[in-house]
């Protein structure tokens, strides 16, 4: 039966995360952005909410409640608070979900318990390549068999590189198709260079270079499905894009109601009011596309088309909405005393991020 109401449990989670985003994340967002640094204490605090751990199997200390729908609901709320911080908080999913879904028992045992413990342990996934024609489904990075090892060569970008992580999952083309490999951060031949990006300033990301990086044959996540992974990444990002758009929309809506020009609030002008209406409509439309894609994941059905459309639409909507928000604020939209300029910079990244979070 077609229904648009999250379960009561999901509503409770959303409410909790929204409050966390509002009272804990948002107040730190601008400072984190300007400093280009994550507020570390906040990550521990967020970890206590168990947002990722809850989706990990009970056998590894998790809550065993994996749901892409819950995932997108949470992702939107966190990103509404701040995109960089949201990506950081959910980064454990980047390691957890591919391993949980397709890893060997040994891999699970090795990686999952660490993510459900008392301490925040970040995850990392390297899918995007620093190339004009980067294609997440067809990596240029290669994994070559050499005796009992895999040897990896190539480069990746937009890899979350938060202190405390020990491994990174890497997509690479092997002779039998593209696969996912678990690479220690300190592997020989792997170098990480800090990135300076237009947006997501507070999230430490790295451009990785792999030069004959040698890992054991057991390091491949054998059953991994790169196509599915990327689509789950896209849908998670789409939800975050909607979160960013909603934040920009709300700020510009409130500004428009307060700011007066020519004797009345600018929100009473149709040019502004209709712009806000369009923003609201597009945000809701994109969100519903995302929900459907997430629902398909949870049903175990093919979500290729739905995820592609949701990602494409949400990226576009986030950019348009953030740009419109800057415009509504006028001169104030252009200065860093207000958040929309950051939303605009963040929003522009979605078209390229591909798998910077997972649901």
């Amino acid at each position, binding site marked *: *039966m*077609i*229904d*648009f*109401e*999250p*379960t009561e449990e*999901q509503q409770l989670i959303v409410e909790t995360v929204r409050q966390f985003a509002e009272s804990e994340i948002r107040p730190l967002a601008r400072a984190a952005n300007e400093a280009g640094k994550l507020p570390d204490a906040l990550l521990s605090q967020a970890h206590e909410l168990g947002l990722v751990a809850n989706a990990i199997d009970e056998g590894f200390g998790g809550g065993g409640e994996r749901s892409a*729908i819950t995932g997108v609901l949470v992702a939107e709320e966190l990103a509404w608070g701040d995109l960089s911080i949201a990506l950081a908080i959910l980064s454990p999913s980047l390691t957890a979900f591919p391993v949980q879904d397709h890893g060997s028992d040994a891999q699970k045992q090795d990686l999952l318990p660490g993510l459900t413990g008392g301490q925040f342990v970040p995850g990392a996934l390297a899918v995007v390549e620093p190339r*004009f*024609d980067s*294609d997440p*489904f*067809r990596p240029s990075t290669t994994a070559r068999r050499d005796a009992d090892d895999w040897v990896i060569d190539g480069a990746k970008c937009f890899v979350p590189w938060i202190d405390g992580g020990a491994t990174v999952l890497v997509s690479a083309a092997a002779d039998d198709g593209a696969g996912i490999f678990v690479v220690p951060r300190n592997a020989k031949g792997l170098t990480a260079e800090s990135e300076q990006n237009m947006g997501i300033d507070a999230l430490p990301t790295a451009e990785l270079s792999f030069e004959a990086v040698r890992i054991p044959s057991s390091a491949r996540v054998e059953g991994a499905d790169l*196509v599915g992974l990327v689509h789950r990444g896209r849908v998670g990002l789409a939800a975050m894009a909607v979160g960013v758009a909603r934040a920009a929309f709300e700020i510009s*809506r409130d500004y*428009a*109601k307060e700011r007066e020009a020519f004797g009345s609030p600018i*929100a*009473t002008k*149709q040019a502004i*009011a*209709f712009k*806000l*209406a*369009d923003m*609201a*409509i*597009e945000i*809701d*439309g*994109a969100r*519903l*596309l995302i*929900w*459907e894609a997430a*629902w*398909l994941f949870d*049903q175990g059905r093919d979500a*290729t*088309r739905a995820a*592609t*459309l*949701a990602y*494409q*639409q949400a990226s576009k909507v986030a950019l348009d909405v953030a740009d419109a928000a800057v415009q509504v604020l006028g001169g104030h939209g252009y200065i860093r005393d207000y958040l929309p300029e950051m939303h605009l910079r963040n929003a522009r990244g979605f078209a390229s991020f591909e798998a910077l979070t997972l649901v």
Partner: protein
Amino acid sequence: MAISFEPAQSTIDAREFYHKMAVEQMRPISRKYDLEEHAFPQEWVDSYWKHGRSGPGGDWSGANDGFVRVCVQAEELCWGDAALYLRMPTAALGGSAVAAAGTQEQKQKFLAPFQGDGPPVWGAMAITEPQAGSDAAAIQATAELDGDEWVLNGNKIFCTSGESASQHEGGFVVVWATIDRKAGRAGIKSFVVPAGTPGMKLIGLEKKLGIRASDTATLLFEDCRIPRSNLLGSAEVKKHDPKRSGDKGFKGAMATFDASRPIVAAMAVGVGRASLDFVKEELARHGYEVRYMAPRTELRSIERDVLEMEAELHAARLLTWRAASMMTHGKPNSLEASMAKAKAGLAVTRITQKAVEILGPPAYSKKMMVEKWMRDAKINDIFEGTQQINQLIVARRILNYSSSMLR
């Protein structure tokens, strides 16, 4: 409850039923009635009356997907032909007004012929006047009580199915008129005028860009007398609170938009899907696959167009279903209904225009149907509140502004 996109079996049944009807009964005569404007589509009217109206779409009050099923019906039939959909013998908006604001007796009296075994009948709603447009409060038509009768005078335009509803016995037109011009909006009431009532005259039929098989009538009311009991709602004029929208009659009539806008949005989605389906078929026929995992740098321009059309269309559809679902659950949905209507009207206008471009020279010809769908689609950006009126409604709601604060 839980988020779900799995249609109930009854919705799936409805979709199949109406899709079959669209394919078999509508598409074959679609071009014919586009070319023969104002001709009466006898075969379609008969077919709908005989088979369509008893199909699995009509009654949505029960379980399952509720009002979403009505939207699915509208989408399927408008995938067939939006104009013929509008020409179906149903109580339409007039029926919704009676259902929303009428007494039990009125419902029984006016709606019964639509269930009965008699000949086909139509309902219609007459609101717009030559000088009023979207401004319902500016209505000039008058109703005066004379003994036990209301006497209506005025001129109504853009009355969908106005010809059928006013000319075929058993049908009726719900007419909006003021009983006290000085009272503004509070004085506006709606009245049921049965087909054939003396004084209700069919003045003309519009020649239109599209939906040519749908009759859009100009009706003149000249000392048109109807029984006192044909007033929907109360005759009381609440003068003292100009901000209130008046009584159940007016409110009920306005509330019909909360139901009709999702339907109109679903109609738009149907026309849009007709174009999109056809574009994809043609592309496939010419060996152009639409790839969902093509590298960004290799994507074809027309491929991207199709992806964007799909996303826009489906976003419009889901917004529509959401508004419908809220209606099923008795939740206020004015905001969401206007969101769906605004989005669908615009998205489908663009989708159908793009479809003609994508398919190249042959698509500009009447040999293909896409040019018709482009013409038909545009009505969805206009009727039941233009794009702009719906943006205004959305804006007021999200800003929490009254209609006097945001005009």
